[in-house]
């Protein structure tokens, strides 16, 4: 346990000191928000009886948390390339604890990042109550832990920071845009919907929207049309199931990441050799 908190502590220190990273991620999220609310305004949310911000913002919180989580594992690749990983790997600390500490560290910064958007959202006209806030925070925790595990899994076998960034870019764009957050799923052709349904971000976006709206007086048909309830064939996926799906995907990748991290060879970490 002490190892986990130690690793977490280091990740946290590095996160709060890296202002450029915090700011660039926030700028990206707010840009999305502006583009989609004011410029495009594609979403007709009248059926839900709310302003479009109430519908769009949860999706942006979900994708921000997602983006931060997946790119955080870059720190693992950096540790490998600048040698610090050796310090961890030769210590008596267990690899599993190190991996979990890394995931918690990454999830914490993603949670903070998502919470900043949430906290700023009333400025854009978002309305919420305590129950909504707690629900969204719970959802953010689930997605940040799961996606951080995916990130660690990728980072455990990637050798260079460049390689990691390329893989993440490759995953990030489709996962963000095929999640229903910015483009309604109903507008997508069938072959792309397959990707939508295996994408964990889809479930996060759907669940987050559901959590951020009062749905008591709205018919299931409308909820389905708006993507608040997902339907695959005859099967309905409601928020609780969505969060569960995210957690299952997360658990699978957590196990994969821990296993893969255990096999990281210390010698391969030594990329920078001394001068001779």
């Amino acid at each position, binding site marked *: 346990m*002490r*190892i986990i908190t*130690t690793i977490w*502590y*280091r990740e946290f*220190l*590095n996160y709060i*000191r*890296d202002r450029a990273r915090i700011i660039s991620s926030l700028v990206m999220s707010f840009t999305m928000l502006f583009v989609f609310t004011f410029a495009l305004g594609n979403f007709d949310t009248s059926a839900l009886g709310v302003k479009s911000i109430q519908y769009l913002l949860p999706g942006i919180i979900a994708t921000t948390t997602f983006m931060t989580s997946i790119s955080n594992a870059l720190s693992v690749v950096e540790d490998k390339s*600048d*040698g*610090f990983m*050796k*310090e*961890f*790997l*030769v*210590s*008596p*600390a267990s690899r599993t604890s190190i991996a979990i500490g890394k995931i918690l560290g990454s999830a914490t910064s993603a949670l903070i990042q998502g919470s900043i958007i949430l906290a700023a959202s009333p400025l854009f006209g978002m309305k919420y109550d305590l129950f909504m806030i707690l629900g969204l925070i719970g959802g953010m925790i689930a997605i940040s832990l799961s996606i951080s595990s995916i990130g660690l899994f990728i980072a455990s076998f990637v050798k260079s920071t460049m390689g990691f960034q390329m893989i993440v870019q490759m995953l990030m764009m489709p996962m963000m845009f095929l999640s229903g957050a910015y483009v309604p799923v109903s507008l997508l052709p069938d072959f792309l919907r397959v990707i939508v349904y295996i994408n964990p971000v889809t479930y996060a976006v759907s669940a987050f929207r559901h959590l951020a709206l009062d749905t008591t007086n709205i018919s299931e048909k409308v909820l389905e049309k708006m993507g608040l309830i997902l339907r695959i064939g005859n099967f309905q996926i409601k928020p609780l199931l969505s969060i569960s799906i995210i957690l299952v995907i997360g658990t699978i990748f957590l196990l994969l990441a821990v296993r893969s991290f255990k096999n990281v*060879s*210390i*010698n391969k970490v*030594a990329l*920078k*050799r*001394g*001068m*001779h």
Partner: protein
Amino acid sequence: MSIGVERNENMSHIIEVKNLVKNYKDHKAVRNVSFNVNKGEVFGFLGPNGAGKSTTINILCTIISLSKGEVYLDGKDVLTEQDEVRKKIGIIFQERTLDERLTARENLLIHARLYDVKENEIESRIDEVLEIVELSDRKNDFVSSYSGGMKRRLEIARGLMHYPKVLFLDEPTTGLDPQTRSYIWKYLLRLKKEHDMTIFLTTHYMDEAEICDNIAIIDEGEIVAKGTPIELKEKLAYNVVKFKSDNSEETINFIRDNYPYEVFNKNDEILVKVTDLPTDFVTSFIREYKENIYHLEIKRPTLDDVFMNITGHNIRD
């Protein structure tokens, strides 16, 4: 220095390596290596790059596994008691392994927790190890602001945080300027003296090897010589007497006729390989030889010569 070692041999060996072999897919990195390291000594592991130095030190530090043989560190098996061994050793790698975005204190704190140092002892140990490497005033500075030599010193301090019994240093002074090198040696010798710490280092600097209590020379995966630097030089190298004369050829013939030593002419300098006491030769030669000689000097053997004589190539090759 090693008085008492004979009496109590097994107890004083902090590292025991027996018939160590390490094979990689396509080559044999270490072939049947055996040696012991005494408690509290500075042990130097010498050899050119690619000789098997790093492989051996990595096996000793539990970083890589061995193919055959036995290695014990303070009585613990490096293969089966990995965590026990890891707690007993401090490792200073060849490459930088600090988190430069953190302060010195934070780097040391994280290390202490990874090695399970009691929380209420951590702060005092941080002050203690920083004192040793004279970095106390930079405790709360970010490591990124440190010079190369300071980073190395901080790494040594970090290696000491959990009070290891053996400190391993892989090429500790490579790439550092001469002044920093001598500082590092000052700290290492102080540790040895004041804390009775065993220091195991690899190097290809022969002048550093001279400081060691015992050395082993490794070449192509095998130990080709071991002993104290003085023993090795006496056994495996020669003093060279060097001078000039008015007529080199005549002088060389005179030496060949009267002494059993090999003589060479190199750029008009006469070199005599003296296999016993060089002063005896010099006094006798000056008495007997009536012609003028100039610039006479006795060149003491270095470990470079030892290495050259055993392996036939220079350590830097």
